[in-house]
């Protein structure tokens, strides 16, 4: 019998419907794979095996009755940022010690409505703050990929590192993730998986632990473009409980996957050609443009003049919003509490013990830039720059560009505990240089694996789209996936 975990989500769904195997068998295969791999990869922070088996049995009954939902019996991993009723939800932080919400996030509710089975909760950078999954209270996630001839552990990217590693290593058929500055797309690029951050407002943020509310969006990580489109269709949708959720019909994204790029105009922003960019990334970018051109797209040079200011503006806006959102962790309502001599003492000690270094630093930066006397100089200025960044994109879209192609990351996956990155926070932040503009403007962006570097590690390209035009992104990403024709399966060492 073929290994069921190796099937794409689309193939698993088909096999379940055709009764070639049961949801119970499929879930069992994934649980076995998790049991074997997780001590090495650390992708899951909680495995809900009993609940998963029960859900799979319920799916089998529905499949038998012919009442199945679009994801009936499909086993998924859920990022620890999503509130899941009665199940470990800690944003990989110590401050939420023992937290089990009494509610279910809208996105996971949508997935369960459609029949999905949850295998467990996935590791991540603490509160989604990080680009390497090294800030997790539960320790780093290890990338299933290794460089040719090397045994060195690599990072899976972050913050959705557990999601990306689990998808890549066949520990779930697909996963939920979130993206505030690149947290879906950068891990996708580092693990040879597909990840899309939809347009701001497409997925409800209700029930997802908030990091930076004007930037956060949920999206899927999957092994193929089609799988990502299937998941996106279930995850998205209007939700009156999120005031920024957009009341718009959700298209069947999977139907757009094979529609091609004939007649589309693809923009190539000159500002994304960074100094010191590795030649193989430059080459991959050109290759991607050639593939799209060969399928009938027109390629046009464009300018997004404020690109270089996106990352510095992000490092004001995101910490500012985070300092406000994370004020709720006070040792009173949930999670960790450290006794103090009075209430302020208790707050200070609980937060000092509960938050990790990266989180503390960002909360402090946010507190500083919002404090009296600095608000206008930092926060208001950054929000003005954000308007300019958004305007850059509006200008090129108004001039007839349908989508923009860029590299997804400035490099392939780097090593766990890399000195350079850990010594200089800005160096780590530069991982998101190509992805963060998209969050600042609220646009959709997809990362698709397109090639490999000199040591055989995956490299990704990013497509940026017009607001609510995820369909063109799926179509164009599919062309890149098909043209590359590479099998992005890591060699199993775990």
């Amino acid at each position: 019998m073929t290994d069921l975990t190796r099937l794409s989500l689309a193939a698993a769904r088909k096999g379940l419907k055709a009764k070639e195997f049961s949801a119970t068998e499929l879930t069992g295969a994934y649980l076995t794979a998790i049991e074997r791999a997780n001590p090495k990869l650390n992708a899951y922070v909680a495995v809900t095996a009993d609940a998963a088996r029960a859900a799979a049995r319920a799916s089998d009954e529905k499949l038998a009755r012919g009442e199945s939902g679009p994801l009936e019996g499909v086993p998924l991993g859920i990022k620890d940022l999503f509130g899941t009723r009665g199940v470990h939800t800690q944003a990989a932080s110590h401050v939420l010690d023992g937290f089990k919400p009494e509610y279910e996030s809208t996105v996971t509710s949508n997935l369960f409505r459609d029949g999905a089975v949850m295998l467990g909760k996935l590791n991540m950078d603490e509160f989604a703050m990080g680009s390497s999954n090294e800030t997790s209270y539960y320790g780093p996630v290890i990338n299933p990929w290794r460089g040719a001839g090397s045994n060195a552990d690599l990072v899976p990217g972050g913050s959705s590192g557990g999601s990306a590693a689990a998808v890549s290593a066949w520990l779930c058929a697909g996963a939920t993730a979130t993206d505030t500055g690149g947290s879906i797309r950068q891990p996708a690029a580092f693990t040879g998986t597909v990840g899309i951050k939809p347009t701001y407002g497409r997925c409800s943020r209700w029930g997802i632990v908030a990091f930076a509310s004007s930037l956060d969006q949920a999206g899927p990580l999957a092994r193929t473009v089609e799988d990502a489109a299937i998941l996106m269709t279930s995850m998205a949708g209007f939700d009156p409980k999120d005031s920024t959720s957009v009341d718009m019909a959700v298209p069947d994204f999977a139907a757009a996957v094979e529609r091609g790029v004939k007649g589309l105009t693809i923009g190539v922003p000159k500002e994304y050609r960074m100094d010191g960019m590795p030649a193989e990334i430059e080459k991959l970018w050109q290759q991607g443009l050639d593939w799209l051109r060969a399928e009938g797209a027109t390629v046009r040079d464009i300018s997004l003049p404020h690109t270089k200011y996106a990352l510095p503006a992000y490092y004001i806006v995101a910490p500012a919003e985070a300092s406000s959102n994370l004020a709720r962790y006070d040792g009173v309502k949930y999670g960790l509490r450290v006794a103090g001599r009075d209430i302020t003492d208790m707050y200070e000690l609980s937060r000092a013990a509960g938050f990790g270094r990266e989180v503390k630093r960002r909360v402090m930066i946010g507190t500083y830039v919002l404090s009296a006397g600095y608000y206008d100089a930092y926060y208001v200025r950054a929000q003005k720059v954000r308007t300019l960044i958004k305007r850059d994109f509006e200008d090129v879209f108004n001039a007839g560009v349908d989508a923009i192609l860029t590299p997804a990351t400035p490099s392939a996956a780097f090593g766990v505990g890399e000195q350079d990155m850990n010594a200089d926070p800005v160096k780590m932040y530069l991982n998101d240089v190509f992805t963060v503009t998209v969050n600042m403007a609220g646009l959709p962006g997809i990362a698709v694996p397109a090639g490999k570097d000199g040591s055989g590690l995956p490299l990704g390209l990013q497509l940026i789209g017009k607001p609510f035009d995820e369909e063109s992104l799926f179509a164009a990403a599919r062309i890149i996936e098909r043209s590359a024709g590479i099998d992005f399966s890591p060699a199993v060492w775990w």
Partner: protein
Amino acid sequence: MAVDAATVKKIGRLARIRIEDDEVAKYQAEINVILGFVEQLDEVDVAGVEPMTSVTPMQLRRREDVITDGGYPEKIVANAPLSEDNFFMVPKVVE
């Protein structure tokens, strides 16, 4: 702009995060690296530019001002480290 050690302590107070004396120097250095990085925003001409307040051009929806949820205090306090009779318990705050 750069922060000094006293400011780091002050930010810690405002953020309600205890910063021990031996931690100040490292936070100070890291915060100053980041503040140095964001300084490049000063080059941008933002005269006449409105700060972004809404990511998508939409008006916030309104709803009727009526109670639509609630009535389950035991769920609200279910995760509290310390509670009694469906109240959160905190150290004494009034003398």
